[in-house]
């Protein structure tokens, strides 16, 4: 569990982060969203003390991070950034092995961990182990960057705009993969982005920041349906919030018994996908794989403000 208590950071008398308190439960995925200059990156960097707080405390599993030497603290916390920051003079395997080697793991254990992570990120170890970073595509380099951050099995992973340098198609896949891996490993993850769509797609919780203040800290659904301030509402964008809301809910949640014509839809597909399919195929209801149907009326009810 990560507890951020009354954390502030001043630069020349100006508060970049202003008295922020947050708690992230074990295994949770929290997305920090805000415009540039909102203080979200500074807040993230105070957690692993790349920036020292001016006031306030960060507790990890009850231990005040200020009591640990910064470099030892950072070896326990995964860190991945935009543009991946791979070491260009080291191979993929050496890059991933960075923290285990700093921690003095035995050689064989490091090698096994590297291969395990490459497998996890769908990179064939035999083909990728000895490649140099400049021989990787953007998506591959990004995955190696995340693998490196996870190498020493940290309980907490911090990510700063990890998908910022990827093109939209690869980004969607990378987001889905990350969420899947985070679920599987049970890692607590705090991710910074300026993209509300990314926040909604990934977050168990979303914390919206503006000018150093925490405006709202809530589930994606609550952020979409009940924005705390006009700023949060503007950040969501009014145009497609109904669709974003639908994208959060799986088909299985509103399926009812019944029969319908045409191709079935997967139960874990989102309502947004179901709506798109209804509109595209001109059907009033879709059969759900494994039984039941989802109706256009039910979709409409979910999307409208209650």
């Amino acid at each position, binding site marked *: 569990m990560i507890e951020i208590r009354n954390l502030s950071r001043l630069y020349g008398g100006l508060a970049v982060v202003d008295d922020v308190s947050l708690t992230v439960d074990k295994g949770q995925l929290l997305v920090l969203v805000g415009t540039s200059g909102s203080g979200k990156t500074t807040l993230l960097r105070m957690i*692993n003390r*790349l920036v020292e707080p001016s006031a306030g405390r960060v507790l990890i599993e009850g231990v005040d991070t200020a009591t640990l030497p910064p470099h030892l603290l950072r070896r326990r916390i995964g860190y991945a950034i935009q*543009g991946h920051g*791979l*070491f*260009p003079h080291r191979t993929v395997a050496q890059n991933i092995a960075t*923290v285990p080697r*700093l921690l003095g793991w035995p050689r064989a254990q490091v090698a096994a961990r590297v291969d395990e992570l490459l497998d996890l990120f769908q990179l064939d170890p035999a083909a990728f182990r000895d490649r140099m970073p400049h021989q990787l595509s953007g998506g591959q380099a990004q995955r190696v*960057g995340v693998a490196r951050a996870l190498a020493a099995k940290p309980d907490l992973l911090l990510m700063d705009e990890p998908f910022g340098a990827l093109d939209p198609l690869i980004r969607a896949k990378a987001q889905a993969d990350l969420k899947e891996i985070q679920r599987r490993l049970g890692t607590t993850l705090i991710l910074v982005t300026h993209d509300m769509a990314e926040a909604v797609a990934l977050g168990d919780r979303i914390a919206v920041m503006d000018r150093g203040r925490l405006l709202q800290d809530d589930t994606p659904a609550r952020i979409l349906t009940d924005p705390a301030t006009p700023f949060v509402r503007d950040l969501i964008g009014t145009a497609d919030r109904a669709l974003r809301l639908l994208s959060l809910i799986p088909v299985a949640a509103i399926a009812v018994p019944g029969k319908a014509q045409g191709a079935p839809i997967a139960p874990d597909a989102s309502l947004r996908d179901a709506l798109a399919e209804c509109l595209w195929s001109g059907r009033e209801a879709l059969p759900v794989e494994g039984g039941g149907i989802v109706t256009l009326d039910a979709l409409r009810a979910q999307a409208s403000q209650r």
Partner: protein
Amino acid sequence: MARLSPPAVLFALIGAAGLALPLVQFKANRIVPGEGVGLSALPFGLAVAAGLAAVLIAGCAAAWPAVLRLAAAIAGLVAVVLSLGAAASHLTPEGNTLARVAPAAGFWLLALGFGLMAADAVNRLRPSLALRWLLLAGAVALAAGILASGALDGVSVMREYATRRDLFMREAQAHLALAFGSLGLALLAGIPLGIAIFQGRRWRGTVLGVLNILQTIPSLALFGIMIPILGWVAAAVPGAAGAGVSGIGTFPALVALFLYALLPVVSNTLAGLSGVPAATREAAVGLGMTRTQVLAQVLVPLALPVLLAAVRIVLVQNIGLAVIAGLIGGGGFGTFVFQGLNQTAMDLVLLGALPTIALALVAGIALDLAVQGARRGAA
């Protein structure tokens, strides 16, 4: 008609001018003006001249493969050098130790023509890094072999060498000690200084400003100004003279070369470290490396190509500048250059100048190759 290679035509013209001009100069002794002797005036000369002309003309055709071109150029160069040696032994009367046969304009132009042809051929060959190291080693071995064979012993420069063999070796050592010693000192002081001003932005302007001013002082002036300053230090500071400090000699020469070397080392260290991407540095710190680990494992290895480029600049610059040390009794090949100038004995000047040029050339090429090797490692 076959297509012509423009650079090869230029080399052929240079070589042709060399064939037309006297190959050597014959002097009754080392000081009197001599008379030129052309290659064709020598008994074996016509055949050699015809062979050289054939290679030069044939080389103009663009269709020649690079390997053949390189082999022909090297053969031509060797033939020209051996002709020089043969001309010397042919022209010098038996038992005469006063007569001198010196290379003349014809020799230099022919050597230049074939040398350029060889360099051009190496370029076209696009050799791998390993092959280029091999070519460099081969060229050095070939030159050493020809010198050791005694084929050139009759040539004036080699006769000057023969009479002062021990002195030459001593001065060669002194020259290398000056060039490499000043480089070593500059690296020892310059790299930490570069790292310090990389981390401490505040001193950057001041340090680089001072080093820039040092760099702009003309070398002779710097050597000159050091004589009274270090002379005073040696006289005024107890123990300084005993430690080797003096106004003239090796010490001021070493100090001057060290000062000239400092700016390239410091500024390249700074440039190399600053060139490391911010994301890479941030990742290194964020993953939990200590300050020293970030420097040793990330920053310095990535800055290495730029650092090696500084070593190249400094070494070539200091091998050349060390000649001036001869003027203030610092030793090195400059000793021969200035002795020769005083005695108007050009052969003696060459005895100092030629090894300096060869040394700078070999050091320059070797370090270029090292820089490329490091680039490849870092890329």
